[in-house]
């Protein structure tokens, strides 16, 4: 992306738009991750609290997905 053709005011505006988009994307990423790990890890509703097995699964799920996301970014 080439920003040479824009003046300073336009560059600032573009920067603001990019930041807002990054914020929205982050929120989307976050809620998708929660949904993914919830669906994959949580199947036991005999109690209100997370079992230790579920907690481990959630942590691993989050780690794995983050690493997956990173690798896709590298190859992209």
């Amino acid at each position, binding site marked *: *992306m080439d920003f040479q053709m824009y003046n300073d005011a336009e560059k600032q505006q573009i920067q603001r738009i*990019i930041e807002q988009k*990054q*914020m*929205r*994307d*982050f*929120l989307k*990423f*976050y*809620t998708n*991750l*929660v*949904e993914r*790990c*919830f*669906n994959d*890890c*949580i*199947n036991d*509703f*005999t*109690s*209100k*609290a*997370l079992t230790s097995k*579920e*907690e481990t699964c*959630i*942590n691993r799920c*989050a*780690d794995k997905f*983050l690493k997956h*996301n*990173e690798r*896709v*970014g*590298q190859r*992209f």
Partner: protein
Amino acid sequence: MAEQELEMITDTFYRIVDMCYKKCIPPKYIDGELNKGESVCIDRCVAKYFEVNMKIGEALQKKGQQTGVGGSVTGFGA
């Protein structure tokens, strides 16, 4: 900013409705009412969702501290 927050809250609500329906309500439809088991399952499902939400938030926060904030989640910068 408030608009984004409101949108996120309503989005989360509908996600929970959808997810807990899949987890708790078998597609048998013997009866139109929720039985006790289904009701209890839904209560626990919502509680667990918010716990998972918190855990993921903590995990992301930790990751953010390690690699720096902002565009790191998207993997490539603008």
